[in-house]
């Protein structure tokens, strides 16, 4: 569990960090919860580690014109315990609270987690359901992409070489919106076998808006559009949840076969939808 030799760089500003990351052998370090174990196993061997923790302004959580702006270096604990997030975007706080254990949540950051894009991470389900916007900075400037565009495939995101996630923006939930994140956890790693985030707007039980984000089930997080359409057209939650697995090529491993994962996805989708409906009241 000894890493390869590497240079450790500590930029003090975002432009400096981006300059250092222009080197293809450099890798950004945020909380290190995925990168450091990989380095210790020597599966990852970046020649340079660019530690972002000295870059100012990346940890703030603030409200701005109807949205919450969350700095990429906000830790999972910052997010789960933020009064602002809990009050205005509880789904994100819930997803954060499901990550790993306390030690991991104290170190790991939202930017690091989503840029890594583990197919079983918790945030992607919530960010998909929240239709979050992710700001990506590069030497040429900053661009914003939607969660749906951001998560491309297994460990693959819209972040290009030399770019950095700098901010995640999520909506302040309107009154009448209910959300829930429900996760079946893999007992060894704590990652999601499946995780479903539901975000619903309902008036006296009638769903006017449904957003369902799914993680863990397949190679990449996704929005379950079929389930959303069913819910919005008045379908019963159970029946709508059943559609979550339609057309999905589910993952299979020693912890859960594809068949069982698909089943769990239906079960947890129904749980999340029911809980979100209850919260919407």
């Amino acid at each position: 569990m000894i890493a390869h030799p590497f240079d450790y760089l500590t930029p003090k500003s975002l432009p400096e960090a981006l300059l250092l990351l222009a080197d293809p052998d450099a890798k950004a370090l945020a909380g290190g919860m995925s990168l450091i174990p990989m380095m210790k196993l020597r599966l990852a061997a970046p020649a340079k580690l660019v530690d972002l923790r000295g870059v100012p302004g990346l940890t703030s959580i603030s409200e701005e014109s109807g949205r919450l702006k969350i700095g990429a270096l906000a830790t999972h604990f910052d997010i789960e315990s933020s009064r602002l997030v809990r009050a205005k975007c509880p789904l994100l706080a819930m997803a954060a609270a499901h990550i790993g254990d306390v030690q991991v949540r104290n170190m790991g950051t939202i930017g690091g987690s989503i840029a890594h894009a583990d197919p079983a991470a918790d945030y992607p389900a919530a960010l998909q359901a929240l239709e979050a916007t992710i700001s990506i900075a590069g030497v040429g400037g900053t661009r914003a992409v939607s969660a749906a565009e951001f998560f491309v495939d297994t460990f693959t995101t819209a972040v290009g070489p030399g770019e950095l996630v700098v901010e995640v923006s999520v909506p302040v939930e309107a009154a009448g919106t209910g959300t829930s994140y429900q996760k079946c956890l893999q007992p060894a790693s704590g990652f999601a076998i499946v995780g479903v985030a539901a975000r619903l707007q309902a008036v006296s039980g009638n769903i006017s808006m449904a957003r369902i984000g799914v993680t863990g089930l397949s190679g990449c997080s996704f929005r379950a559009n079929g389930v959303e359409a069913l819910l919005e057209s008045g379908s019963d939650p159970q029946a709508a949840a059943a559609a979550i697995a339609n057309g999905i090529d589910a993952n299979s491993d020693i912890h859960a076969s594809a068949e069982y994962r698909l089943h769990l996805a239906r079960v947890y989708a129904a749980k999340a939808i029911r809980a979100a409906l209850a919260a919407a009241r």
Partner: protein
Amino acid sequence: MASVITEQEKLIGKGIKRKEDPRLITGTATYVDDMQLPGMHHACIVRSPYAAANIKSIDIKAALETPGVVAVYTGAAVKDVGPVPCGASLPGLRVPHHHILAQDRVYFVGHPVAVVVATDRYIARDGADLVEVDYDVLPAVADPEKALADGAPAVHPQWPDNVAFNFHQENGEVEKVFAEAEVVVKQRITSQRLIPSSMETRAVLAEYRSGEKALTIYSSSQIPHLLRTLVAGMLGVPEHKLRVVVPEVGGGFGSKLNVYAEEALMGWIAMKTGKPVKWIESRRENFLTTIHGRGHVDYYEIAAKKDGTITGIRLKLIQDLGAYHQLLTPAIPTLSVLMMPGLYRCQTICADIVGVFTNCVPTDAYRGAGRPEATHGIERMVDMLAAELKMDAAELRLKNFIQPGEFPFASATGLTYDSGDYAKPLKKALDIVNYMGLREQQRKARAEGRWMGIGMSTYGEICAFGPSPATPAGGWESASVRIEPSGKITVHTGVSPHGQGEETTFSQIVADELGVDFNDVVVLHGDTAIVQYGIGTFGSRGTAVGGTALYFALQELKAKIKRFGAMLLDTDSVVYEEGRCACRKTGNSVSLAEIAGASYRAMKLPPGTEPGMMATYFWEPPNFTFPFGAHIVVTEVDKETGVVTIQRYVAVDDCGKILNPLIVAGQVHGGVAQGIGQSLYEHGIYDDNGQLLTGEFMDYAIPKITMMPWIESEHTETPSPVNPLGVKGVGEAGTIGCSPAVVNSVVDALSPLGVRHLDMPLSPEKIWKVLQGGQA
């Protein structure tokens, strides 16, 4: 004035906080990795990524050229070092020569192939990456039943059947009993491979002083003295020139009751290079190369009368040994056979063990070592018999228990159970859970469509290993007690505590016996240069055997104290109480410190008495001890997901006399945690090619605190007649009692679906599939 200690203030029986804990929880304890010696090198081991392969060539040139790399050694360099020892002897046992580095073939993933020695740990690791090993990959076999099949790859080419040994034991008229049985229940039951996962991995530091020709090995071990004797033999170092030091040990669970290749290898490197060398096992190496536990496939048959009387037990036990024998590998399943009748009176048994080589890391002692497997087997079979006979599981057990008047009881497997009242903990546990009320609750739950289960296990164990004739390396234990001139007390114990809290319990024993302050006692262990020979800590023996040796040493010492006390008080009759010798007639008294001081000053000596104040005792136990107990587990199975939730866990353990309830509770909690681990989560899985699929904590699930139920821990106290302390041992009880209770509970929950058996771990998917199909 001496403090007045009344009987009520005796420390034995009190929940005194552990002396060890402040240093452990403040990070100020000294482990092997905390030790730095001048000029120390670091070693990194190159290991096979294949389960079976011939080594065609090894190129060490690039590694040797790395600045900072001091040496690289391969199998050829160490071929004359003695083999890693197997201490178990069984008739006809095939023992493969276990070199400390692979010679021309590797036998499991993780097999050490070469070692890189460098000036720091990082360079050693970099050097290891530069060692080029050219392998010719061979077919491997990782499953013991597949290894027994015709045409299976041979783990060791000289033994194509992969059988290391066959072992047979029987008692009574087995054929007749089974032929005449009114009911016979059969079941295949597995006890999966488990990975011990101690918090501290293995760690070795070796130092050679060429002037003294003396080698010191620091190792994270449970058996310092045996390690010294055996490694001295491997390296050809005279035993008196080898010192083994075991500093703080971060857990072992049996995995450090062993002698490993790396311990001898570091000693060899230190002698070869003349520089100290340290090796710290990585967690990845720990998964791959430290022994695993369990690995049973058991075929059980139980014969009974219609009234529930168990008349015979038959077992075919297939033990996955792995590629080699470590210290006790082949002996572990024989312990299962010894324990196979459990707490039941049945005198007819028949057991056949087949020990099977596989291309996996060896199995060996892991918490419970053979007894959890046996208890799991018999307790599952008794539940299945109850179901078959439509009897209540508790009632069937009570009917078959050995009764209190029958002790000492000669078991069918040749043991003599010391003492017991088996109904007592079961009845207590049934009372605690309100068994009848629970069954009623279960009926209601089922009516509501919920799968609630109630399961129990009544276990017995063989502890306090043990009488020397029954153990491979002596089963006695030693203690010495020295009262220093100031009256402070130094205890040297031959056991090697690594989490069991004996610095505390032994201080309690000394405090009570000598009437001294608990804080005036220090308990030293784990250094062969300062502690007289001892056996070590394993098999729930520390207090029952080591504590008893201490007790007898204290009796000898008290006699000497009294002789000095009588001399100082100028009388021929004294009593020793509350830390003072007193003359009843005159009322004069003298303190222990004054007596100790006088014994060293030695101005005058009692007739025939040596100066100084020290006693040493080697105690040979006349028998094992046999703790027992009852665990009851209430579970509910989620119908949608198959997830098992433990709703109540009641453990009533009888470990004989309890010296410190806090420590006993800790042992029960830890044991139950590992039992729940086996029942629900843990499984060391090898694929068909011998790759360990659960080679990190990302895939191997040990229970976290959030996955643990509240444990209601209670006790009955049936003293053991084997030792004067009356203690039996508790280190393994929680693990042994747990798994059958959990599985019985889940099987009970699903019994309306026709489920009669489930193998561990009870993963949600496994249960879900049962719920889908309605059959196990």
